[in-house]
């Protein structure tokens, strides 16, 4: 460990990665277990030898203080939303209220067994029902299933619903349309659901190329998957026409709800003509992202799709003559596509999201979307100025919704600086970079989504940082190519990790 002030390693960089397994020492332990209070029968009597494990798994042997220190220390090697701006486009990194963590942890929620008799889980079922009703109102589609575990799970569900719907009508449809701006999960879900992907082009305004769509819509098309505003942060004004075309040919219209944060209380997928919608509770509804989950991807559908929804359904039953209504799980749904997972879904996420909806209320949700759109447009306006505007111009010269896409093509051409270099340099300025190289159709893309919970000051700081970075790029581009400098580790060799993947620790 070189401590001399000469070294320009930061303290964190000096602190090399050590795994919990490498801290292990035989004989150490953190757990103490309840005492054996029943006869100590030899295990061999209970479990035949050939079914028993011989050598114990080599889990770490560490004391509690060591575990706490280990994870506290590595936690600081993460950048997090509670530290600074995290404008990761398409991911809606909005503030995660701690109130939601508190209510999710109440024993009545956290220690409720999923197989508890519904009569004795009325609070949980009512909460789910209330959340279903709220999402139905927000989406403009009357029937909701909370079961899918995330957005992509919702997409799969939506496509399986489409298949069930067409099967029911005796139609064989084999293809699903996705725009070239679509998120990767859309085509991946299409394949997983047994369909073939057909790409639809984007027009010069960033919307669906209606002519291309017309050309590709046939009776083989089962569905068109869209998000609106789309991944360019642009609202497709032709949505009704698009819906008409697809419906005209007997296809369903699927709404990828990842961008719902732009339009809550202003416009509803159902009113646009969508048949099936998924909602990412970990985006618009403040569920913390947790480093990549847990999330939840409820789906809302129209009348004609309802009968195919996954089982069990959470239903409200009116109490016979004047009794209060009660809530139940309905398993008897002959036309249902069946289960997508175990039990009722990510209930803990439902609690957080419902707490969020109650906190903001209808007006608050509408205002959240307004502020998200205002923040995005303000930041875009700031970035149209000066060097950012020159080297990193907006891809589609329109007003945006809750996010916008810049193109680093001029920077690449004039400064030999790639978008990834700008992103890495942003790390040195204490910002998480926006999403980069997505959507695919924009060269050197940078997709920026500030969300409504950012202050004007933090947006200004971000804009100033980009300006400074391009000034630096003009004088010495090398610095950017070598960035970051101050992060716990610097650029990592991903190629090596792909060539000779080391995906677990070797233990002796």
């Amino acid at each position, binding site marked *: 460990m070189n401590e001399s002030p000469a070294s320009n390693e930061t303290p964190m960089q000096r602190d*090399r990665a050590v*795994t*919990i397994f490498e801290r292990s020492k035989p004989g150490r332990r*953190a757990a103490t277990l309840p005492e054996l*209070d*029943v006869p100590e029968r030899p295990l061999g009597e*209970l*479990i035949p030898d050939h*079914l*028993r*494990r*011989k050598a*114990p*798994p080599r*889990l*770490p042997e560490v004391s509690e203080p060591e575990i706490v220190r*280990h*994870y506290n220390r590595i*936690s600081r*090697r993460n*950048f*997090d939303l509670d*530290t600074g701006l995290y404008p990761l486009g398409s991911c809606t*990194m909005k503030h*995660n209220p701690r109130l939601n963590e508190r209510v999710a942890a109440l024993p009545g929620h956290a*220690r409720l*067994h999923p*197989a508890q*008799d519904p009569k004795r889980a009325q609070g949980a079922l009512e909460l789910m029902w209330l959340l279903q009703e709220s999402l139905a*109102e927000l989406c403009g589609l009357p029937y909701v299933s909370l079961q899918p575990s995330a957005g*992509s799970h919702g997409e*799969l569900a939506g496509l*399986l619903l489409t298949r069930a719907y067409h099967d029911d009508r005796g139609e064989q449809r084999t293809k699903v349309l996705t725009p070239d701006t679509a998120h990767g*999960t859309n085509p*991946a879900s299409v394949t997983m659901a*047994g369909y073939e*992907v057909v790409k639809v082009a984007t027009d010069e305004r960033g919307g669906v190329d209606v002519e291309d769509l017309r050309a590709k819509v046939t009776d083989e098309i089962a569905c068109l998957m869209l998000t609106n505003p789309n991944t360019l942060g642009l609202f497709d004004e032709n949505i009704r026409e698009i819906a008409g075309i697809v419906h005209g040919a007997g296809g369903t219209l699927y709404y990828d709800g990842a961008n719902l944060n732009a339009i809550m209380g202003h416009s509803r997928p159902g*009113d646009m003509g969508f048949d099936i919608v998924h909602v990412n509770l970990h985006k618009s509804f403040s569920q913390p*992202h*947790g480093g*990549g989950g*847990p999330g939840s991807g409820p789906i809302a559908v129209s009348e004609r799709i309802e009968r195919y929804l996954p089982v069990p359904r959470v239903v409200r039953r009116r109490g016979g003559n004047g009794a209060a209504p009660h809530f139940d799980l309905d398993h008897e749904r002959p036309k249902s596509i069946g289960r997508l*997972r*175990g*039990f009722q*879904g990510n*209930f803990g996420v439902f609690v957080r999201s419902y707490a969020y909806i109650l906190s903001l*209320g209808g007006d608050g949700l509408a*205002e959240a979307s307004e502020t998200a759109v*205002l*923040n995005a447009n303000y930041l875009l306006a700031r970035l149209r100025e000066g060097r950012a505007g020159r080297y990193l111009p907006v891809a589609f010269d329109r007003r945006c919704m809750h996010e916008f896409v810049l193109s680093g093509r001029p920077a690449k051409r004039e400064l030999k600086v790639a978008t990834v270099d700008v992103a*890495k340099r942003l790390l040195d300025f204490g910002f998480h970079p926006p999403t980069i190289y997505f959507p695919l159709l924009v060269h050197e893309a940078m997709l920026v989504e500030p969300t409504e919970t950012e202050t004007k000051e933090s947006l200004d700081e971000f804009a100033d940082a980009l300006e400074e970075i391009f000034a630096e790029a003009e004088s010495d581009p090398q610095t950017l190519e070598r960035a970051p400098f101050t992060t716990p*580790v610097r*650029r*990592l*060799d991903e190629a090596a*990790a*792909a060539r000779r993947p*080391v*995906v677990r620790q070797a233990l002796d």
Partner: protein
Amino acid sequence: MTRYTSATDADRSEMLAAVGAASIEELFAELPEEVRLGRDLELPQGMAESDVHDRLAALAERNVHAEDELCFIGAGMYDHYVPAIVDAITQRSEFLTPYTPYQPEVSQGHLQAMFEFQTAMSELTALPVSNASLYEGPSSVASAGYVAVGATGRRRFVASRGVHPHSREALATYSRGFGAEVVEAGLREGVTDPGELERAIDDETAAVFLQTPNFLGAIEDVTALAAMAREAGALVVVSADPMTLGVLRPPGECGADIAVGEGQPLGGRLDYGGPSFGFFCATEEHLRRMPGRIAGETIDVDGRRGFVLALQTREQHIRREKATHNICTSQALNALGGIVYLSWLGRRGLVELGELMARRTAYARDRLAALDGVEPLHAAPVVREFAVALDAPVDAVLKRCAAEGIAAGYPLGREYPEFENGVLVAITERRSKEDIDRLADALGRAVAEQPATSNQQPATVPS
């Protein structure tokens, strides 16, 4: 202004001015009239934090949970104790609030934890590679099916009836999508009937699905059953309860190609069913076909050790329609809880906990079997859960026990009509001998109170 936003009126006008818009409405001008909502949402007004808290606490009050009563329900999710450090660590902002580690330079905390998690799960299952989590158990079983089709090009699955009903249902649901058929192999004396399994497997079989302990709590002889599958060139997918892998022979040593399962027992709460995590381990050859995130070790430009998302070319954001799976947001935070829990339990703890459960389960099984009108549903060895048959209507008996503050178990009837009067009873380290005795007393009373259901004999497995 909501309490989570910061734009004051002054901010708004400054920002609108910069944007060159006269009003917020103007920013929504591109929305065509016909798709505007044009009214307020029909949702309640926003509430104060304290009111929201009280409202949700009132709902929670209306659930009977594992602190209100003695919970002997398992069926895939178990009431284990969650050590305080799991919450303390997973609730740290640094772990709670970031997203997927797309920027590894500022995500080493999560990436290293994933790497540690993969190592631990690989140890537990005795399979060389693990991913960093899937959604949960049953959908992981279904995902294994998708991988098997990709690996074998075959489209037929054979699933033991001992596999969790939810897993079999999820597998069937997914299969209707990618076009595979699922056939079932029945049980005999509580475990997969080897004869039926053998007959069910053919050279079109992509994978054979087993679970151990199976849904009835019985430990399957995976080694023997797996051999039949390999014979036919089918993959062996084993769904395992990670909490039993300190004492049970791990899938990797029984001939499994893929081990999946529900991670909830590892530091997760019941949470009425989620969020938890699913795990997915496999042999080396399936590495590039695995679903989900995988962390890999590498070095940075200065030679420092570091971790990255490895093999992203499997994933949807790179490979799109050719991806091995569509999963994006997974259950990273729950998997973090899992590795913290496993570090807490440690090498000996997992074994000790398994032995404690096995002995208490044996005690409970004997205690209940000794009651009039209660018989074991099978005699197969068990470790943490077992099934009994009641000589009385199950619903009435469970209702009676609930009235005494005991959730006596999981009724098998709906999912196993052949065990209409069967009940599944789960034991964890939180259910003491005293608790088990209370269960036995209550259950005994409840069964005795019922008119012996003469017409239906206690179901025991035909032999």
